[in-house]
């Protein structure tokens, strides 16, 4: 794994975190001022059971270099069963990425509780290093975003 320094160019990593455990865990790590890489952008969801697997591929196809999902530990779900369903869905979804030509390691899911600040720090650090080892993802030359960016040369109209 490459050494991450302050000068390493940031990659775009999207994290889908459940409100009750993992978001709390990330908060705990922050309050504890644990040093973490800053590539991850967190999207807070009510539960890992809310994670539609399509969120993951949509993020990857829209320019994310990696996606991390984190929820409550099994048996610890705020809604009792959400993460059990999530585990099945996410595990099945993993199979699709390599068939599309996307490295399987660009997506991981794990469990972090609200009190596990040090564990969150380790998850983020390891996942970020894993994505940096893979480098930036380059998908789809004809993505429509490229077309939108041509808008710059026009005339401002009130």
């Amino acid at each position: 794994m490459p050494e991450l320094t302050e000068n390493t160019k940031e990659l775009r990593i999207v994290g889908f975190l459940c409100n009750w455990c993992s978001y709390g865990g990330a908060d705990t790590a922050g309050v504890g001022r644990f040093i973490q890489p800053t590539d991850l952008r967190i999207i807070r969801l009510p539960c890992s059971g809310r994670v539609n697997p399509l969120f993951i591929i949509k993020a990857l196809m829209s320019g994310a270099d990696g996606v991390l999902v984190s929820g409550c530990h099994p048996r610890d779900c705020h809604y009792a069963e959400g993460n059990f369903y999530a585990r099945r869905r996410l595990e099945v979804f993993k199979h699709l990425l390599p068939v599309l030509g996307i490295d399987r390691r660009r997506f991981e899911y794990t469990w972090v509780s609200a009190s596990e600040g040090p564990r969150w720090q380790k998850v983020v650090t390891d996942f970020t290093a894993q994505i940096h080892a893979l480098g930036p993802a380059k998908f789809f030359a004809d993505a429509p975003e490229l077309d939108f960016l041509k808008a710059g040369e026009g005339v401002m109209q009130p």
Partner: protein
Amino acid sequence: MAIHEQLKKIILDTLPGVECVIGWGPGQDALHGSPVFMRKPEDVDSFMDTPLGAFGAVNNLALFLPELSGKKVGVVVKGCDSRSIVQLVAEKLIKREEVVIIGFPCEGAADLTKIEKALPEGREAGEVTGAAIVGETLKLSLGSEEISLGLADIKADKCTRCKTPGAVISDAFAGIAGKAPEVRDEYADLAALEAMSLDERFKFWEREMSRCIRCYACRNACPLCVCRDHCVAGSRSPHWITQTDSTRDKLMFQIIHATHLAGRCTGCGECQRACPAGIPVLLLKRTFNRGVAEIFGYDAGMDTEATPPLLTFQVEEAHIKEREWQ
């Protein structure tokens, strides 16, 4: 009595109690069959009255059942088609008592793409002026030219890995169901893709999907795509896919389709057959079918009482090792 004659008799006996019986009739030429909705006894005359007969019974007619729900209908099925019905019943998308299922011992169905590929270079299926099945060969005329093709070479891929040549469930069956063959799906098609590097696989999809015209024939030919007029592909909120002609969005729809079928797809292959652009879209669904079989040992469409694996869970999953990462 030939199988299609036995089927005709069963259909005639079934007609009085149902709105219609769905079967296969003639299509636009010698090679093509077409779904036929038999409402009156005279409609039954055209049933399987095609040069390819039962070998030309290509369409999965289970497709039409959800839209006819509320009416009692009969449907003739190949073994693979019956799996779609089993899955629809298991998911309570149709009522078992509203369908009269008529099975027969299927010996495989034609793949028109394979037939076209087997014709001499530059020739296409639309040039075929006549066809006849003689023993294990399909004899074709292209004007004055005669061509013979082995049936085994032009059977659909799904037939080579078929576990259900007879219907999984049926109310009437023509002839005698053979013993289910001991075949194992080795996913050779996926293995061929996986022999490529990740970059090559990505380029493969980019090239294949670039032909997509977004007609959604894949979706509309899928018997388990039951959202019909309410598909997320047309939704602006959430806005999963844009209206641009981008390969990315075309592939995104295929991923949506496959994901929505995970643990539900019976592998009937109608999505791929329907694709006018010849895109191997079934591969994505088979990716999930293989994954679901590996993790849960589940095959969709075999048991009307089964719960699809993604609609349930176990507290301790035997085959999920999510803690290996962290």
